[in-house]
């Protein structure tokens, strides 16, 4: 028991090293080690399902103990990390085949997994930051595996993530300067006793770091490029897990370090929730709406999913920032759900890319018959994403809406609802342009993906159903976690929420039954109704022209052009452009600065004289420097 958390933490790292070395022998050894060790991590994690560990001393650094701990919330996030990483590893066995440097790729994947696990297990800020930094640069190495364009994306990511990490570092150092220990509990005590200005500074600095990683606007600019350019399995890790780590950080910040009551005291303004949390809620709300709109306009499947990730993480952050038990539960649950369905979507789109080689939506279409499993996975994914019952996305979104209603935060609710509606538009676009409609001629030999790539799709589809119908499975962990952090958990049961205390009830088993019943009824009507007459896709005409196989007859480019015309003028100013402008002006400034090295000997020697004579001048003045 004593070494066990260490063992858990070291398993993925060991696996990474072993699979790297094993890859030198044979590639099957590499895959065996990678899959074995990441499954092992998952298995080990289940030993802690009901067993929180508070204090596992890792070592001592700068007079501050480095500890590991596991509580239900960290368990939840560790579960997300290990599951999605395992599935990504399985998925990339075929997906990444034939690329160079695979040993290194698996090594990196396992190290990223270990680092993220370390973040969730960290019991003090130093450990947290250590693994955070490891995670940043190793995930950078993963992103740039995707070829030429990904390098630029990765560059943007690493710069932003260094900035975020550094901002956290300032906050950590400020805390360390006061109490010389960084354990969460002591930090929380310090924050409770500190002046408000200090607390706010700490909060903002941490929040910048977490916002970058969680891709909350306006620090999201790295996401769209990085997700779309990285290999698909990496994108699913990034979107499914990395973002959640940012959300986890935000959760730790809000509830482990600060706590709602302290946050309420910091800026006593009359809002439904503490001002700081309210502000974060607005950041999240704007994230939801803006990135939903952006997702609608994308032509690139992975970019679409990337923007959708930003908007979905907005829900998570929004839920966490509401501050009520229901909202927190909703946010955390949505984190789990989003990890499931977004990874699922990335896997299915990855499968499509694997077979067709393109991710441009306008080039795809009609793959439903060719890739049925992938289509089914996508269908589950988009239903979950759009928040349609009975799948899991619905439950968590319902909880967030309910929490917003309880708090009477009407504007945020409207933003959230707009985002949800908008997501219908883009998920429809996604599945329509990919699987429905006309099959382009060049893809007529496309086959279903290999079995190994289907496994993650199947499992995650199952996950959307399981957590949709039995939300209590997740709520079990979440409620214990809430109790751990001193929040009274809401009432729940296996199938949903019994309601009470001004909260509506939700019983997913009923909804699902109705839903399934409806499906059955519809099928019966469909079966008993008039016989359909099947005709070929090309037995048709459009605008007086006969449709042939080499012309497209359905909308695929500029699907929502009408919508774009409305919102594009607003998006003329993007955060990305502003950052680039800053970078450019800093560039120019730096370029001027370095001209001090003129290459001119007399200038150089005159610096010496000037310096000494300045000192001399001070002495002549009387030796008073300051």
């Amino acid at each position: 028991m004593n070494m066990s958390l260490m063992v858990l933490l070291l398993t993925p790292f060991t696996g990474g090293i072993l699979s790297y070395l094993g890859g030198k022998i044979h590639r099957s050894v590499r895959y065996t080690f990678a899959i074995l060790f990441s499954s092992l991590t998952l298995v080990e994690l289940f030993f802690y399902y009901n067993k929180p560990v508070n204090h596992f001393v890792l070592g001592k650094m700068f007079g501050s103990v480095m500890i590991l701990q596991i509580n239900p919330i960290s368990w939840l996030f560790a579960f997300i990390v290990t599951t999605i990483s395992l599935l990504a590893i399985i998925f990339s066995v075929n997906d990444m085949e034939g690329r160079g440097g695979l040993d290194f790729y698996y090594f990196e994947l396992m190290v990223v997994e270990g680092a993220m696990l370390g973040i969730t297990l960290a019991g003090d800020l130093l450990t947290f930051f250590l693994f955070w930094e490891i995670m940043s640069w190793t995930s950078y190495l993963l992103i740039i595996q995707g070829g030429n364009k990904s390098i630029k994306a990765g560059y943007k990511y690493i710069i932003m993530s260094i900035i975020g990490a550094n901002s956290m570092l300032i906050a950590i150092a400020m805390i360390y300067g006061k109490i010389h220990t960084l354990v969460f509990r002591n930090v929380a005590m310090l924050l409770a006793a500190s002046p408000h200005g200090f607390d706010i500074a700490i909060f903002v600095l941490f929040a910048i770091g977490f916002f970058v990683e969680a891709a909350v606007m306006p620090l999201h600019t790295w996401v769209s490029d990085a997700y779309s350019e990285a290999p698909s399995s990496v994108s699913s890790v990034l979107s499914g897990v990395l973002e959640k780590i940012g959300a986890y950080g935000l959760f730790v910040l809000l509830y482990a370090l600060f706590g709602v009551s302290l946050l309420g005291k910091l800026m006593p303004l009359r809002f439904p929730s503490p001002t700081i949390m309210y502000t974060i809620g607005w950041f999240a709300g704007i994230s939801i709406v803006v990135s939903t709109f952006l997702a609608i306009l994308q032509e690139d499947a992975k970019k679409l999913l990337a923007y959708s990730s930003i908007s979905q993480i907005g829900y998570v952050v929004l839920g966490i920032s509401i501050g009520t038990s229901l909202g927190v539960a909703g946010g955390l649950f949505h984190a789990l759900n989003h990890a499931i369905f977004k990874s699922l979507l990335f896997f299915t789109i990855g499968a499509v890319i694997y077979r067709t080689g393109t991710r441009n939506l306008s080039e795809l279409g009609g793959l439903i018959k060719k890739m049925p499993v992938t289509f089914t996975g996508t269908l589950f994914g988009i239903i979950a994403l759009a928040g349609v019952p009975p799948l899991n996305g619905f439950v968590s979104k319902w909880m967030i809406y309910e929490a917003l209603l309880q708090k009477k935060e009407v504007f945020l609710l409207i933003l959230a609802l707009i985002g949800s509606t908008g997501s219908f538009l883009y998920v429809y676009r996604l599945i329509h342009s990919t699987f429905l409609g006309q099959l382009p001629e060049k893809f007529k030999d496309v086959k279903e993906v290999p079995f190994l790539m289907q496994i993650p799709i199947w499992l995650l589809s199952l996950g959307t159903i399981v957590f949709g119908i039995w939300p209590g499975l997740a709520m079990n962990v979440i409620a214990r976690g809430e109790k751990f952090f001193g929040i009274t958990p809401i009432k729940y049961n296996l199938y949903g929420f019994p309601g009470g205390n001004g909260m509506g009830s939700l019983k997913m088993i009923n909804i699902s039954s109705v839903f399934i019943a409806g499906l059955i009824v519809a099928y019966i009507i469909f079966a008993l109704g008039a016989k359909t007459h099947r005709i070929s896709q090309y037995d048709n005409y459009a605008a007086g022209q006969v449709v042939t196989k080499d012309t497209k007859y359905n909308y695929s480019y500029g699907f929502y052009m009408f919508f774009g015309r409305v919102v594009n003028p607003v998006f003329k100013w993007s955060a990305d452009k502003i950052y680039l402008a800053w970078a450019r002006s800093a560039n120019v400034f730096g370029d001027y600065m370095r001209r001090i090295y003129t290459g001119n000997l007399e200038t150089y020697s005159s610096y010496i004289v000037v310096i000494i004579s300045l000192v001399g001048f001070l002495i002549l003045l009387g030796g008073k420097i300051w």
Partner: protein
Amino acid sequence: MIFYVGAFILIAVGLYAIIIKKNLVKIIIGLDLISSGTNLLIVSIGYVKGGTAPIFSHPGILPQMMVDPVPQALTLTAIVIGASELALAAAFVAILYKHYGTLDIRKVRGLKW
């Protein structure tokens, strides 16, 4: 005191030459002036009024009558070091002249920024 001032002026003139003069040889002369000035300064620090050379050349000379021997020893070292620097500098100038065909420092500006 005049020795001090002379030494300082030598140093200042040396620095002036390095900053203002364009000719490489003059710059080297500037370097030499600085080191000469420094040596003059060191020796004059060691001087004790009415003192004699610190050598026990005949029994009548007592330690109390002598000037400070340390600065003289330091000067000895400093002179040699200055000479070494100068030799190396002269060598550099000779090669620079081979490369650039001129002794103008303004032309020797290949490396910057």
